C-alpha cells in the first residue's frame, strides 16, 4: 500500500490527517510525518524520509578509499568526527594497519569534543522545542568554543575531513591544549550545573518530558536502538566499553544509564538527562586524554594507493547518536564493492514511528526531540 493509499484511506475516515511537512522550523532536518490524529491524540505518525538521500553508499562504490573521507563527514554533520573515525577504522581493519598511539589519542580527543558539541545541540534544541529558547543559545555559546578549537585543529567547524587511513591528518597546533583545558575548566561542572539549574530541573520541562514515550529495555533492544536512547531505557551498552576500539581501554569513564530520574525508566526526560550526564563523562575523558597524550607519529605508513585485499570488515564507533558502523566489502580493487552505513538515527526513527501511537501532538514534538535524530543520518 503506497503513500497515496494511506492518505486516501485516512481522509475518508473519522480521523484528521495532519502533515508535519518536510519544512518545519525545528532543527531536526528534512523529515515529514503523516499524522493521523483524533483531535489531540495521535493514533499513528508515519514518517516519510528520503528528502536528504544523496546516495552516499552508491558514491562509495566509485570512489577510492582515501578520497571518500570527506563524504563520510556529511553522513552526520553534527558529529562528523565519528563518521570519519568509523570509516577509517573499517578500512584499517581490512588492511591490518596499526595506528600509532598518538594518533589514537588525537582521534579520541576529536571524538569526545565532537560528542560534547553534538549533545549541546541535542539538549538545547529539545529545550527549544519545548519553548525555552535561552538554554539553546547558551549551549551554542559553548559550542562556539569547541568550533574554534576544531578550526585550530583541522580548519573545519562543522565537517572536518580530519582523519586519514592510518592516523590523523594534522598534529595539535600550539596553544590548542591550553585552550582545551580552559574550555574544560569552564564547562564541567560550571556550565553543566548552570544548565541544570536553568532548565534541567525546571518543573515545567519535567512535566512535559516525564512519562512521555516510555521505551522499555526489551523494546529498545528489539527496535535496534543504540546510544543514549538505549542507555536511557536502562540497558548499559556502550561500544567504547564493551567492544573497545582506539585507546579507550586506557581511559576511565562511567556509562550513564537512565533510571527514571523524574518519571519512568526510559521516558523522554531520561533521554534528556543521559545526554547531559554523558557530556560530563566526555569532559572527564578529555582531561585524561590530554594528560596521557604520548609523543610519536600521527600517521602510519599506508600505501599510496589503498587497495585492501578481498574481505569484509565492520568498523563501528559509539557516536553521539548511537552505534555508527561502516560495513565494508572489498573485492581487492581500488573502490569498495559495497559500503553500508549503519546509523543510530535510522533505528531511532523507526522507534518514533512505533511509539507515536497514543501520544498527544505536543508529545510527538518532545519524542522527536528526545530521540535526537538528524535527517542526513537516516537518508544518507
Amino acid at each position, binding site marked *: 500500500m503506497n503513500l497515496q493509499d494511506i492518505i486516501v484511506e485516512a481522509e475518508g475516515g473519522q480521523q484528521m490527517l495532519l502533515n508535519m511537512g518536510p519544512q518545519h522550523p525545528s532543527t531536526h532536518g528534512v523529515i515529514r510525518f503523516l499524522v493521523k490524529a483524533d483531535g489531540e491524540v495521535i493514533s499513528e505518525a508515519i514518517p516519510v524520509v528520503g528528502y536528504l538521500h544523496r546516495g552516499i553508499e552508491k558514491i562509495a562504490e566509485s570512489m577510492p578509499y582515501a578520497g571518500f573521507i570527506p563524504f563520510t563527514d556529511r553522513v552526520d554533520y553534527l558529529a562528523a568526527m565519528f563518521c570519519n573515525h568509523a570509516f577509517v577504522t573499517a578500512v584499517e*581493519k581490512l588492511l591490518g594497519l596499526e595506528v600509532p598511539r598518538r594518533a589514537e589519542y588525537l582521534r579520541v580527543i576529536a571524538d569526545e569534543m565532537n560528542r560534547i558539541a553534538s549533545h549541546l545541540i541535542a539538549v538545547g534544541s529539545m529545550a527549544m522545542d519545548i519553548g525555552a529558547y535561552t538554554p539553546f543559545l547558551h549551549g551554542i555559546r559553548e559550542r562556539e568554543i569547541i568550533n574554534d578549537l576544531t578550526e585550530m585543529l583541522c580548519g573545519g567547524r562543522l565537517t572536518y575531513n580530519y582523519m586519514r587511513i592510518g592516523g590523523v591528518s594534522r598534529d595539535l597546533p600550539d596553544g590548542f591544549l591550553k585552550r582545551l583545558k580552559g574550555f574544560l575548566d569552564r564547562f564541567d561542572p560550571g556550565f553543566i550545573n548552570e544548565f541544570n539549574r536553568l532548565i534541567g530541573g525546571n518543573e515545567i520541562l519535567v512535566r512535559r518530558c516525564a512519562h512521555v514515550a516510555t521505551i522499555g529495555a526489551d523494546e529498545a533492544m528489539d527496535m535496534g536502538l543504540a546510544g543514549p536512547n538505549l542507555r536511557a531505557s536502562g540497558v548499559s*551498552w556502550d561500544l567504547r566499553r564493551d*567492544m573497545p576500539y582506539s585507546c579507550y581501554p586506557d581511559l576511565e569513564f562511567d556509562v550513564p544509564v537512565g533510571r527514571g530520574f523524574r518519571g519512568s525508566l526510559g521516558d523522554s526526560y531520561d533521554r534528556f538527562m543521559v545526554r547531559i550526564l554523558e557530556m560530563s563523562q566526555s569532559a572527564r575523558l578529555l582531561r585524561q586524554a590530554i594528560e596521557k597524550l604520548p609523543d610519536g607519529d600521527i600517521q602510519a605508513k599506508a600505501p599510496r594507493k589503498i587497495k585492501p*585485499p578481498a574481505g569484509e570488515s*565492520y568498523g563501528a564507533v559509539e557516536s553521539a547518536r548511537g552505534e555508527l558502523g561502516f560495513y565494508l566489502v572489498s573485492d581487492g580493487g581500488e573502490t569498495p564493492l559495497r559500503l*553500508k552505513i549503519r546509523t543510530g538515527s535510522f533505528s531511532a526513527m523507526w522507534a518514533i514511528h*512505533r511509539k507515536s501511537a497514543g501520544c498527544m501532538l505536543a508529545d510527538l514534538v518532545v519524542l522527536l526531540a528526545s530521540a535526537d535524530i538528524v535527517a542526513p543520518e537516516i*537518508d*544518507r
Partner: protein
Amino acid sequence: MNGEAIYEQLRDRFPDKVSETRGQGPLKCVYVKPEAIEEVLIALRDQETLGFRHLSFISGIDLKEAIEVAYGLISYSLKVLILLKVTLDHENPTVRTVSHIFSAANWHERETFDLFGVKFEGHPDLRRLLLPEDWKGHPLRKDYKEEPFYHEMPTTREPLLGRS
C-alpha cells in the same frame, strides 16, 4: 567467545543449513540457506548463552552473479558481532522477512528492497523508504541505469566544461 566458536555452535545445531566459515578479511561470515534464516535467527536470539538481541544492520550486496543479503547481529552478553549471509537469485531475489523476530528489521528490509529489489515475503509494509514511491529501478544494483527523466525533470546535467 568469538565469532568462530559461535559459527561452530550454529553448524552443530543446524547441520545442513549453515555453511562453513568463509571470508578472508577480519570479519568472517557464514552462509545460511534462505529458507532457514528465520529459525537460525530465532535460535540466535532466544538461546540464553548466545543472546544475539541486537540486529545491527541488514545489507544487500550485489555480486554480479547473485545478490546476497547480510545480517549483522550483536550480542550484548558476548559482546561480539557475527555476520550471516544468504545468497539469492540475481533477477528475482526473495527471502522471508525477519521483522517479526527483530522489529528493527522492518526499516532495514524496506531499505534493502528499495535499493536492491530484494522482496521480503511476509513483510507488513514493504514500500520504498529512501526513494520516491514511483521511482523506477533499484539504484545500488551494479546494472542500474537511471531513467533520463523523472516527472519531466532531467536526471542528467549538461557538463559545464566545454561550453564557450
